C-alpha cells in the first residue's frame, strides 16, 4: 500500500477519515497561530494575539490512512486560559510551543505539560514539544539540546520549526499524525473510540462561574 502522501489510499473513501483533536499550547506570541496558519493555509503574516481560541481543520493523507485534524489554536494570554482549558478535554494530541529566543516561554511550556499531565492519563495524548522561530537563530536562548533533552526525559516528540520560513512545520504535524495512527493501531480503533466516548459522556464538569 505504498501510496504517495497526497492521494488517499484505497478504502479511505469508504469511511470518513478518523478525526483527531489537536491543541496548540504555549505562552503568548510564541507563534502558535502562525504555525496553524502556515500548516493549514500555507500563509504567514504578522497577526495580533489570538482572541479566545481559533479552530481549523485539515485533512491529512498518510501512507496508510487518512486523518482529519481538528486544530484548536489557543490564546497564549492568561485571561483566556479558563476557556482554553475547556478545549483540552478530549484532545488526542497537543503541540507545546515555545519560542527558542525566550527562555521564559520554554519554562512556560513545561508548566503547560504539567497541566496536561493532570488532565490526562499517561499516554492518552500525543505530545510534541516544538521550538519555534528558528529563523531568529541569532537570538536563541534555548539550545536545541536543551529542548531535546527535556522532550526525551518526558517521552515527548520534539522538533524545531520556523513558521516564517516554513521550515519543518508540515513535518511536525505529520510526525504527530503518524504517531497518532501508530498508537491507534496498537490500541485498536474501536476500543479507543469507546473509551473516548465514555470519557465525554461522563458527568459534565461543573461549569465554573461564568465570570471566573
Amino acid at each position: 500500500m505504498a501510496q504517495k502522501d497526497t492521494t488517499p489510499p484505497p478504502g479511505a473513501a469508504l469511511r470518513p477519515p478518523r478525526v483527531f483533536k489537536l491543541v496548540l499550547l504555549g505562552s503568548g506570541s510564541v507563534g502558535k497561530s502562525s504555525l496553524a496558519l502556515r500548516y493549514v493555509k500555507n500563509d504567514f503574516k504578522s497577526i495580533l494575539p489570538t482572541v479566545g481560541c481559533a479552530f481549523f481543520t485539515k485533512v491529512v493523507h498518510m501512507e496508510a490512512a487518512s486523518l482529519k485534524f481538528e486544530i484548536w489554536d489557543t490564546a497564549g494570554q492568561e485571561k483566556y486560559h479558563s476557556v482554553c482549558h475547556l478545549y483540552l478535554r478530549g484532545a488526542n494530541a497537543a503541540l507545546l510551543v515555545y519560542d527558542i529566543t525566550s527562555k521564559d516561554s520554554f519554562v512556560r511550556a513545561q508548566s503547560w505539560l504539567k497541566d496536561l499531565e493532570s488532565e490526562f492519563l499517561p499516554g492518552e495524548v500525543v505530545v510534541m514539544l516544538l521550538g519555534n522561530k528558528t529563523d531568529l537563530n541569532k537570538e536563541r536562548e534555548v539550545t536545541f539540546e536543551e529542548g531535546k533533552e527535556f522532550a526525551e526525559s518526558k517521552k515527548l516528540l520534539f522538533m524545531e520549526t520556523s513558521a516564517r520560513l516554513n521550515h519543518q512545520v508540515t513535518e511536525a504535524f505529520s510526525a504527530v499524525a503518524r504517531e497518532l495512527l501508530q498508537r491507534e493501531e496498537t490500541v485498536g480503533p474501536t476500543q479507543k473510540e469507546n473509551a473516548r466516548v465514555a470519557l465525554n459522556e461522563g458527568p459534565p464538569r461543573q461549569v465554573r462561574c461564568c465570570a471566573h
Partner: protein
Amino acid sequence: MDAGGNTAAPAPADAEDLEATRLFGEEAGDSGGVQKDPPDPGDRDLEETGSKAKDQLPSLLSSLPQSETPSGTCEPWSPTAPRNSPTGGPENGPGGQGGDPSDEDWRSQRKHVFVLSEAGKPIYSRYGSVEALSATMGVMTALVSFVQSAGDAIRAIYAEDHKLVFLQQGPLLLVAVSRTPQSAAQLRGELLAVHAQIVSTLTRASVARIFAHKQNYDLRRLLAGSERTLDRLLDSVERDPGVLLLGAVRCVPLARPLREALGALLQRCTGPGLALSVLAVGGRLITAAQERTVLTECRLDPADLQLLLDWVGAPAFAAGEAWAPVCLPRFNPDGFFYAYVARLDAMPVCLLLLGTDREAFHAMAACRRLVEDGMRALGAIRALAEVAGLYNVPSANAPAYSVQAVGAPGLRHFLYKPLDIPDHHRQLPQFTSPELEAPYSREEERHRLSDLYHCLHARLHSTSRPLRLIYHVAEKETLLAWVTSKFELYTCLSPLVTKAGAILVVTKLLRWVKKEEDRLFIRYPPKYSTPPATSVDQAPHNGFFTGL
C-alpha cells in the same frame, strides 16, 4: 473668516421640509439620550458630586453669544480660561512613543488617555511606555485621593489649554488629558468606552475581585494584547467621530429586500442559548437578529453592539473560526457571553453568534454552515461582495457611499441619526454618514472636522443652554447642526456657501435620506426565540461532536 456670523436661533423657515420638522422637537433634550449617563452603577456616585460640571465654551464657537459659564464644578482648580489655541493646529503623527513625560513628542500629543489602578499602578497609556509614566500616574492618584479625603470626587481640571477628566470605575482610574476642544462630558464618554473595552475582556466583577485580592496587582498581565484594541478605539474617535458622539451604530447601505432576506436567514439559523446573531463587514452592520426575551428584559445597548462590531473587525479574527468569551458591559458587566466569530466563505463578511453556553462551539459552527448555505441559496454572497468591493476602500474593506450620491453640491460630509423610528426600532440606534473624502483625507483635516463636530455636539447638548440649530462659519468650512424630534444632523459644507445655500443643501440632504432610508438603515431588526441553553441539553451534543 467669521463673516456670516454664527446665528444660533433663526430657523431656515423658507424651506418647507425644514419647516415641517421644525414643529417638533421643542426641547433639544429628547435627542435619543446621546448624552445620558450610561447606566453604570460604578459611575453614579461620581455623577452625583457637584452640579453637572459643564464644558467650557469651545473656542471655535467663541464668537457666539456667550452665556454659558462652567458652573460649579467640584474641583477647586477650574479657572476656565477661554481657550484660544487653534484647533486645527499642526499635528504630530502617531509617533511620539518615547513615553518619557519630558519628551517633546510625547507632550505634544493632542490627547492622552491613561488607565491606572487605585494603587497608582499603570495599566495603559495611549502614548509612550507605561513604565516611564509611573511618576506621572502617581501624581494623578495623589490628586484623586486628595479630593477624596475631603469626601468629594474629582471630575475635571480645566488648565489653560488642557482639560483633564477623571473617571473612577471600581478599582480603576481613567484619566484623559486633552487639548482638543472636546467637552469634558465627551471625554468622559470616551473614558467610559475605554473602560467598557477593558470590562469586555475581563468583566467588572473579575477586575474588582482581582484588586480586592491583591491591591497592587499588575493588570497589564491580563490585558496583554488588548492595548492595540484600545489604541484602535481611541483612534476611531478622532477619525470617525459619529459612533461615540451619536451613540449609534453604522449600517452598510443595502437594498431592503436583501437585508430582510439576510435577517430572515439569521432568524432561521438558531440554536439553544443563542442570544444575538450579527452579520458585519468592515466593522459595519449588515443586519443583526436578537433573541426576543433578551430584548424585552434588557435591551442591547448600541455601545455594546459597537464594541462587538469593533471586536470582530479586528485582524485577530482574520483566520479560522474563533471562540472566545466576551462581556457586554452595558448588558451585564459581570458575566460572559461566548462568541463564535467566522468569516463567511473567505469574504470580508463576518458572522458573529453570541450565546450563553460556553461549550456550544460545535453547535454554533453548525449554525454558521446553515447561514452560509442560506446565503449561497440567496445569492447574497455575490451581492455582498459587490457591496464590499464596489467602493473599494482598500484599507478598511468598509463599504460605504460617497457624499456625491446625495447630489447636493457644496455638501462635504454629514452625520445623520434618525430619531423618528417606531418604538421597537429604538432597540437599534443607527446613524449614517458618507466616507470622508478630500479635503478630509489627511489626518490633520480629519481631526479638525472631528473637533468641529464635537464642538457642535457639545453646544446642542449643553446641559445649561441646549440649542436646536447652529449655523457655524469656521475658517475652512461651514457647518450646520440641527436636532429635532425626528433626527439629529451635522453637516459640513464648503466655506463659501451662503446661509440660503446651506438651507437648500440641507433640504436636499433630508429629502435624499428620506428616499434612501430603507437602504441606509435597518428598518425592522429581526428577532427570534431560542430555548435557553441548559447543561442537560448541551452535554449529549458535545459528547457527540467531540466524540466524532
